[in-house]
Structure formats: structure tokens, C-alpha cells
């Protein structure tokens, strides 16, 4: 009896959280002119479409949002690849060597993620303007690649790799880059995936920075393009909702694919 009421309560909460997304998906499958037609009065048709159409999605392909979504994918992918290379080498430098000033360097890494990025986005954007990086992909990618949190996460994982393994490899004549490439990286897949997810989500979810630095048609990112469309007088809400679905489903697929690592990286940042 108690179990049953708990699962009913859980179900009510779950469905309440899900309703807005369901409404968005449903309306992305019907013409924009009908978005508000099913709201008064509310009925099951508000949340279900029996004759779904994909016209909004095909219209999306040739719209500004389609292009912007592609830009988001390019920028996020570049951030993950470059960012992982930079963060993993740095974490290796911090974990594998004993040297003077290591504490100081580690302190800088921690300090850098204690200053929230959005707070310094405006001063940084005036610097980028001076360096002619506005409306360039480099300008959009750069702030994402040096991620103190990702370095921290990778370092924690690297510290667990036994020193004997490294010594043996060194005696066999492996260089330090070889140790990094052939011992540390292959052993650290979960941490690398966790850090990669972190870099990806930072970039995919960004709004302040792309709004400040990349707003021309060639460089605009998905969320900025979507909010521009919403601000217009005659908005096609079918298109807006289809764009919202695409911008949500892409990270959802990535998170779901790496679910195990996502929860791991989330819980390890929380508990340490």
C-alpha cells in the first residue's frame, strides 16, 4: 500500500516535469497555426497529435536555425577534441611529476574554475573585440577549451595510476609523451569521457558568450538563433518547437549514450 502510493506520487511528479517537453514535441509535429488552437479548453489533444507531420522539421533544414544548429555541432565538437587534448596533457603534467611549484599550478587550476565564466564573459568579450575574434569560430571555441574542472577531474583519475607501471615503461625506454599516450590515456577512458561530456555541455548550453561574440548569420549558434526567432512579431511556433526539440535531442542522445560516465562525473564532483 505504502509502496503503491509512493510510486503514484513519483509518477505525478515525473509527469508534471515531462508535460512541457511533451507539449513541445507534440506542437513540433503540427502546423504552427495550430499551436494555440488546442489550449482552450485543454484536452488530451493538447498533448497528443494523431496526424503528425514533419513539415516543421523539413522547413528547419533550410532555416537560420538549421544552419545555427550545424554551427553548434561544429563548435562543440571542436571544443571537445581540442579541449580534451589540452586538459588531459595538463592533468598528466600535474599527476605524473614531482616538481617545485606544483601546488601553485594546481591552485591556479582550482582558482580558474571558482571564478564563474559567465561573470567574466563581458570583460573577456571586450578583449576579444580588440583581438578581432568577434564573429569567428575561434572566438566561439576558445573559452571552452581550457576547463579547470575537466583538468581537476582527469588529475584525480590519473593519480590512481600506479607509479610502478610508469617506471617499468620508462626502463623499457618509453618517452614521457609515450607514457602519456600509451599508458595514461588507454587506462583513463571513463574519466576522458566524463571530461569530454563536461566540455561538450559547457559549449552546447552556452548562451551569454555566443550572444556576445558570434551573432552574424555564419557564426550564430542554435540557442541564440532560436531566441532571436522567438522575439519576432510573426513567429512560426511550429518551427520554434521543432528547433527546440533538435537542440534538446542532440545533447540527450550524447548524455544517454554515455549515461554511466555522466552520473559518475556528476557524483565525483559533488562528493570530493
Amino acid at each position: 500500500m505504502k509502496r503503491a502510493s509512493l510510486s503514484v506520487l513519483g509518477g505525478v511528479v515525473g509527469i508534471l516535469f515531462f508535460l512541457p517537453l511533451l507539449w513541445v514535441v507534440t506542437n513540433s509535429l503540427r502546423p504552427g497555426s495550430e499551436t494555440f488552437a488546442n489550449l482552450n479548453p485543454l484536452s488530451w489533444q493538447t498533448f497528443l497529435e494523431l496526424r503528425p507531420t514533419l513539415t516543421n522539421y523539413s522547413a528547419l533544414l533550410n532555416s537560420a536555425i538549421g544552419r545555427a544548429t550545424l554551427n553548434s555541432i561544429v563548435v562543440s565538437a571542436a571544443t571537445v577534441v581540442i579541449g580534451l587534448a589540452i586538459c588531459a596533457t595538463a592533468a598528466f603534467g600535474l599527476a605524473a611529476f614531482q616538481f617545485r611549484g606544483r601546488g601553485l599550478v594546481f591552485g591556479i587550476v582550482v582558482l580558474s574554475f571558482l571564478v564563474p565564466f559567465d561573470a567574466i564573459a563581458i570583460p573577456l568579450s571586450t578583449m576579444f573585440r580588440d583581438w578581432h575574434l568577434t564573429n569567428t569560430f575561434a572566438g566561439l571555441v576558445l573559452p571552452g577549451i581550457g576547463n579547470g574542472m575537466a583538468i581537476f577531474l582527469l588529475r584525480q583519475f590519473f593519480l590512481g595510476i600506479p607509479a610502478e607501471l610508469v617506471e617499468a615503461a620508462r626502463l623499457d625506454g618509453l618517452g614521457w609523451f609515450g607514457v602519456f599516450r600509451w599508458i595514461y590515456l588507454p587506462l583513463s577512458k571513463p574519466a576522458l569521457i566524463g571530461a569530454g561530456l563536461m566540455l561538450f555541455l559547457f559549449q552546447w548550453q552556452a548562451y551569454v558568450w555566443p550572444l556576445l561574440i558570434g551573432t552574424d548569420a555564419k557564426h550564430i549558434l542554435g540557442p541564440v538563433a532560436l531566441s532571436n526567432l522567438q522575439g519576432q512579431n510573426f513567429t512560426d511556433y511550429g518551427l520554434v518547437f521543432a528547433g527546440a526539440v533538435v537542440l534538446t535531442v542532440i545533447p540527450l542522445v550524447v548524455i544517454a549514450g554515455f549515461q554511466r560516465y555522466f552520473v559518475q562525473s556528476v557524483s565525483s564532483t559533488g562528493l570530493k
Partner: protein
Amino acid sequence: MKQRQGLIALAFLAPALVCLAVLRIVPAISAVVESFYTESLLRGGRVFAGLGNYTDLLSNKDFRQSIGVTLLFTVLVNPIQVAVSFLLAVLFTQRAAGAKLWRTLVILPIATPPAVSAVIWSVIYRPDGLANGVLERLGLPAQPFLTSPSQVLPSLIVLLSWIGVGYWMLFLIAGIQEVPEEVREAALLDGAGPWRRMVSVVLPLVRRPLAFVLVADTVSNLLVFAPVQILTKGGPNGNSNLLMYDVYSRAYAIGDIHVAQAEVVILVALTLAIVAGQFRLLRGDQ
């Protein structure tokens, strides 16, 4: 040998250190430095202004209102989100049919970028949108939501909680699952009721993740920007003009970059002060 190790380590660290210095630390320092300067047409170029930008801000009515709105928002949103995340974490760690599925539905909005969520909720909150549709179905009168000075902050809090609660809940679920089964069973055998068990057994054992969630949630809520920019532009009458949006409009709409830098410094200082206060409180009652 040690010195050689240091050089090799530095080679591995160099790209990241350059990035962190140039993209995180230099702009933070530059905000502080620039906040003491001002643009002078008379003398051509930038001149030292001392605390001029700060006194300008403090005597500015809109800025003072923005501080007030931000503090009110902070006091409301953080306890609500932490409490709801905790209750949901407790609910979804009970053994009950479908718990995994319901939990997933709560987590789902994490995937939606905040700006996209704001766009979705801008349609929900329209006078003819989903929210009023639901109210009318329940026989309640339609509400103005974003255009009402008293409803605008609660409306933003609902939207931000829809985005955030599932995320914070993940940390607390991880924490609760670390609580040994024996401890919970022992409490059960001692005849502790469900409420008692939650408050006296689970709550003290998840202190660390709870403290982390409170601090991290507070920081992220002090930086809320997209929903304000997309839904309300700080209105009506400045009632949702949170500091982060005020900084942005001061820098770009008003175009006073030096005063905006001073405001960034105040925002970061306020964040640090609140977080430091929370740390003291959390340590104080341990």
C-alpha cells in the same frame, strides 16, 4: 633530476596554463583594473577615476533596485530548489514501481539548453499559452505571469526549477545511495517513522553533497541571464532585473563599459560573500 621533471611537466601544462591565464584570470583582473577608469571625452581616452564608477553605481536607482531584486530572488530560489531536490532525491531512492522511469522524466530537462528552456516557457507563459490553459481547466482565473510585478519572479523561479532541480537531485541521489543500507534498516527497526528517518538519519549523512548543491546552486542562480533576457528584459518596472542582466544592458544598451566592469566586480564580490557566509553557517552548526 627534479628540475628536469619540472621542465617536462611544464611542457605538458603550458597550453592549459596559457588558456586559463588568458581566458579566465586576465579578464577577471582586467575587470577590476578597468573598473577604476573612465572614458573622458575632454582629455581624450581613458583616465583614472578612483572609486568614481562605484559611487556612480551606488547612487543609481536602477542599480540599487537590481541589487534588491537579486537578493530577494537569491533568498527565495535557493532554499526552494535545494529542498525540492532533496525531497525528490528521497522519493526516487525509495523502492517503488516505476521509480527509475519517473526519475528519468525529472532529469530530462537537463538536456535542454537554458536559453531553449526560456524560449519554451515564453510560449507557456503567454496569455493564451499552456499555463493559463491548465489554470482554466482547473477552474482558476487566468494569470498575467511575466507582465505582473508580483508574479514575474515566482514565474522565473518555476522555470529555473524545472531546468535545475533534476540536475541537483542527481548529486543528492548519489549521496543518499552512499548511506549504508544497515543504517537505514537500523532506524527502521528502532521504530523511526518515515519523516523521522529522513530528518535524523538521511539528512545528516548527506551533509556534504547537500552543502555542495547549496553553494553551486547559489552561484549558478546569481548568474541567471538567459531567462531574463529572453522573457522579461528585466521588466515589468525592473522587477526581474537580476544583476547579470543589468551588467549586460549597462555594457551594451547603455554602452558604459567601465561602469559595467565595476558592476561585474560587485557581482563576483557579492557571490563570494554569500558563498563564504554559507560555508560559515554550514560549519557553524556541525
